[in-house]
Structures are given as structure tokens and as C-alpha cells.
């Protein structure tokens, strides 16, 4: 196996058939700010090495210098694609340290926004996977529908992608504006229509490119640290929302889709069904939404976080998200460790799945994991 890159290899007069290094990313249109170095022999990948760090911003260190309300805004940026879910994990960590009682209406709003964020994230995943498979229609349809959700985010939080710490310690920054409930109900009808459209494509395009590709066995999934849809596609019904409920998830009745196959198709079927499950959750929460009015929460100066430590886990669209927060009684946390699902999915799981795959299957495997470099690099 040659150590030279493909170009060097060919410059020496060799034909590029007996093994060379191939970079997938970080400038590949579909890779995100992340690369993986593949060693290829013929059409087969014989070794893969992830190359993270392009989005490393040192959030854990930055948070040690900022107050919880400032950190709530930072927590948006932990994952561009599902900022509201990360808002919630951070807010819960501070709430538990402070022993804060969250008003029931605020808890309901948190769940609604987190589930909408999950739907929105799954839509992006669907679009990008379609794009990676060369199915441009799916990409355009998905991103078209995503804008309906972003319109609602803008209406409620003021931001389309980054909600500026809308789900903040103590509850939510401000109550739903008038007419939000009706808008969400209408949005859910649109989302149901979208799921049907996705299903119609699934049986053909997705199945043709994803069936039997990137198979992950359950014991490997556990050993490599897979969580969320990737783990559930291997046959384990593990979901933090049900196993260790937070907010009001213990009152809600919802499906946790699982599959046994562990391949890219199973992962995509699970995510599509999860959109349906999120729609049922939001409907149930809308029915329970108390009619009180919440006062807006404004950042206060010099509020200290009581001494203590917590480890808070949430189920976000990509898997298990967690925050370990240690406070020494100052206004800033002493240590804030952020555990995102993608550190595990993008390094051990991805490297494991790529070895032995065909080069043409690399994008399908890569995007079937729904990876996001932002919460890996932090």
C-alpha cells in the first residue's frame, strides 16, 4: 500500500490503482467542517482516519468565563442544526444546580420547541443525505419544508437558526406570542404532508442506495458509543426521554421506533418515523399547555450559581447530549463539560463503518449517521 497521496502517486507515473490516500472533506460540498482520510485500494476503503478540529472554538473554556445567561446564548452554537435542543440541556444543568422551580407552561414550551427543533434537524439530515446520494429533488423538497419550521422559530424566538438562548435557565426568555398555538397546529399538518412525501421517495431512491450499506452490529454500537437513532437502528430501544424523563416527557405517550438491521436504510427509516413521533408529542403538549402568562426573563447581574455539580442528559435529534457542570458558588461555572453524540459518531463509529466499504458508499454511510462537526469540536 502506497503512502503517497493520489496526486503524488500519479505524478510518479503510477496508475492510481494499487492504493492511495483519498480525502473526503473538509472541503467536500457535503462533508461539513470535517474531513476523513481514507486509504483506498481499488474501489475499497481499507483504512479510515477522522480529521476533526476545524470547528473547535473552545466552548468549555469560554463558558468558565461567562454567566449562565451568556452561556445560554453560547449554547446555541453547540450545534447549528439543533440549537434549541442544546439550549435545553444547558438550561436544565443550571436549573438543577440552582434548584429552580420551572413554571409548568415554560416546561411545556421547552418540550414543544425541543421537538420542533428535532423535526427541523431530521429535515436537514434528510435533505443532506438525499444530496449525498445524488437525489437532488429530496434535498430541495426537504429544505423547502424546513423553512416553515424556521418561520415559526423566527416568530417565537426572533432568530431563524440561532434562538439567542430562548430556552434559558429559569424557563424561557419570553412567552409564546399571540397566535402561536394556531401556527404550530398548522405547521404540524404541513409536516405530516412532508412525511408522506418522504415515505414515497424512501421505497425507491433511499432503499436502492442505503439497503445493506454501513451495517452496524449492536455489540459494536455499544462498544463504539453510538446513541440515538444510530443505536436504535441496531435494535436497542434506548431513549433518554423515556429512560430518564426530563421536563414533562414522563406524562407523554409516544413511540420510540426501532429497527434490527443496523444499516443506513434502517437509520433513515427511524429518523423519518421520529418526525411522526415528535408531531404526536407536540400535539399532546399543546393540549396540556396551561393558560397562564409567563413574565419575560431578563439577564440579571451577579447572580451566583450555588456550589455543586450535576450531570444532565437529554435526547437530542442525533443522540445523547449531556452537560457536566461544576460550580464553586461563583457567577460563572467552574467547569462545564459538554458531551455531544457526534464525538462518538464521527470518530469511532464512522471509522469502523468506513473500513471495508466501497468508495461510492462513503457519502451514504457518512450522512446516514447525521453528523454535525459543531458539537464534536465544540
Amino acid at each position, binding site marked *: 500500500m502506497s503512502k503517497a497521496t493520489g496526486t503524488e502517486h500519479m505524478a510518479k507515473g503510477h496508475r492510481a490503482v494499487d492504493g492511495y490516500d483519498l480525502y473526503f472533506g473538509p472541503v467536500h460540498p457535503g462533508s461539513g467542517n470535517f474531513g476523513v482520510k481514507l486509504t483506498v485500494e481499488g474501489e475499497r476503503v481499507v483504512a479510515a482516519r477522522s480529521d*476533526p*478540529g476545524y470547528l*473547535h472554538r*473552545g466552548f*468549555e*473554556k469560554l463558558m468558565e468565563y461567562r454567566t449562565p445567561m451568556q452561556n445560554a446564548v453560547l449554547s446555541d452554537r453547540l450545534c447549528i442544526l439543533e440549537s434549541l435542543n442544546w439550549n435545553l440541556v444547558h438550561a436544565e444543568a443550571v436549573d*438543577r444546580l440552582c*434548584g429552580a422551580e420551572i413554571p409548568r407552561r415554560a416546561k411545556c414550551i421547552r418540550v414543544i420547541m425541543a421537538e420542533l427543533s428535532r423535526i427541523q434537524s431530521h429535515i436537514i439530515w434528510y435533505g443532506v443525505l438525499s444530496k449525498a446520494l445524488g437525489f437532488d429533488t429530496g434535498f430541495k423538497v426537504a429544505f423547502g419544508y424546513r423553512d416553515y419550521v424556521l418561520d415559526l422559530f423566527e416568530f417565537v424566538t426572533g432568530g431563524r437558526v440561532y434562538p439567542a438562548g430562548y430556552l434559558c435557565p429559569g424557563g424561557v426568555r419570553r412567552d409564546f406570542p399571540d397566535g402561536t398555538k394556531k401556527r404550530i397546529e398548522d405547521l404540524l399538518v404541513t409536516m405530516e404532508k412532508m412525511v408522506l412525501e418522504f415515505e414515497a421517495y424512501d421505497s425507491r431512491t433511499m432503499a436502492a442506495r442505503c439497503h445493506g450499506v454501513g451495517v452496524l452490529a449492536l455489540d459494536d454500537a*455499544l*462498544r*463504539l*458509543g453510538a*446513541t440515538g437513532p444510530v443505536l436504535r437502528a441496531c435494535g*436497542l430501544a*434506548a431513549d433518554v426521554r*423515556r*429512560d*430518564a*424523563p*426530563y421536563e414533562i416527557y*414522563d406524562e407523554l405517550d409516544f413511540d420510540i421506533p426501532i429497527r434490527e438491521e443496523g444499516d443506513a436504510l434502517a437509520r433513515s427509516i427511524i429518523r423519518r418515523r421520529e418526525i411522526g413521533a415528535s408531531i404526536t408529542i407536540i400535539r399532546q403538549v399543546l393540549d396540556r399547555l396551561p393558560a397562564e402568562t409567563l413574565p419575560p426573563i431578563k439577564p440579571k447581574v451577579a447572580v451566583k450559581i450555588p456550589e455543586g*455539580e*450535576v*450531570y*444532565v*442528559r437529554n435526547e437530542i435529534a442525533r443522540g*445523547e447530549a*449531556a452537560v*457536566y457542570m*461544576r460550580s464553586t458558588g461563583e457567577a460563572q461555572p*467552574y*467547569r462545564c*463539560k459538554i*458531551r455531544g453524540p457526534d*464525538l*462518538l459518531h464521527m*470518530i*469511532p463509529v464512522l471509522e*469502523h463503518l468506513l473500513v471495508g466499504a466501497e468508495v461510492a458508499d462513503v457519502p451514504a454511510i457518512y450522512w446516514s449517521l447525521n453528523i454535525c462537526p459543531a458539537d464534536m*469540536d465544540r
Partner: protein
Amino acid sequence: MAGVNSEQQRAELLEVTGLRFAVEPHVAADGTMWISAEHERLPELLAFLRHNGFAHCSAISVTDWPEDGEFELTYHLWSYEDKILVTVKSRIDREEATAASVISLWGPSAGIHERELHELFGVSFEGNPDLAPLFLEDWEGPPPFRKDFDWRAYVREAFYEEGNSREQSYWD
């Protein structure tokens, strides 16, 4: 974050681990379990937990306590069967920051956390074959997440020019 139906299992686990390792586990208000252990007993304790259902190593973290001259390692473990979250804490010397790797227990999922902590805190994990740099490129400075690394001073000196009026606020 109490798991469902986990009261009984948690009580049993508390008793067994407490007796066996002479530690005093406690249960926090949110239902999570916390155990502090001496560093010498850590490998044995973690192996015991691994073989008693804690199949998921959710995260490994380090907290820097420069005034005590110590690093605190925290292992956050989850049991898919009993739905219990346990955090095991142990302190190691800050000067000779070395701990035994838990790759043999949790495989690559623990290995990647150790690789990250090696880069950001300079803690060495014996038995981990891959502690190559992860996020930082060509970094030769001290491990940047240590409390005594002044990143503001570093950024100012590396990226801003003293005497440049437009960048003066970084030097005031």
C-alpha cells in the same frame, strides 16, 4: 435524572459498592449516583460497575484544581438495563497526571474521551494506544483547558498588534 423503575436497583447497588470498595456513594436530588474513590481503587471499581450493567460510558471529564495540585477525573456511566446514572470521581496528582486507561472496559468510546482529555488537559492514560492530537493543529503550548493557561493573553499576543489603534481595546 432518575431512571424509571430504578429505585430498587439503585438501593442494591449503593449497598454493594459501598461495602465492597469502602466508599460512600450518595444519591443526588435528581436521582443520579455519585461515588468518590481513591485513585488506587479506581480500576477495580470501574471494572466492577462495567460488569454490573454499566455498558455505556457516557463521558469522561477532567476538572482542574490547581490550588490543590490535583486533577479530578469524572466517569459518567449509564446502565441501559437498570436505568441508573453513576458518576465516579477520583483525584490524581497534577504534576504527574497519569491514569489507567479504561479502553479494556468500554472500548473505543472511552478511548476517544481519553484522547481529548490528553490534548486539552495533558492527562496521560496508560494503555491507550492512540493519544494523538485531536482538535488542535500544530499546537506546542501548554494544554489549553488547564486553569492556569491564560487564553486571553495568548490570543492577544498571537493575533493582535500593540500600538495598532484599531486593536487597542485588547491591550487596555
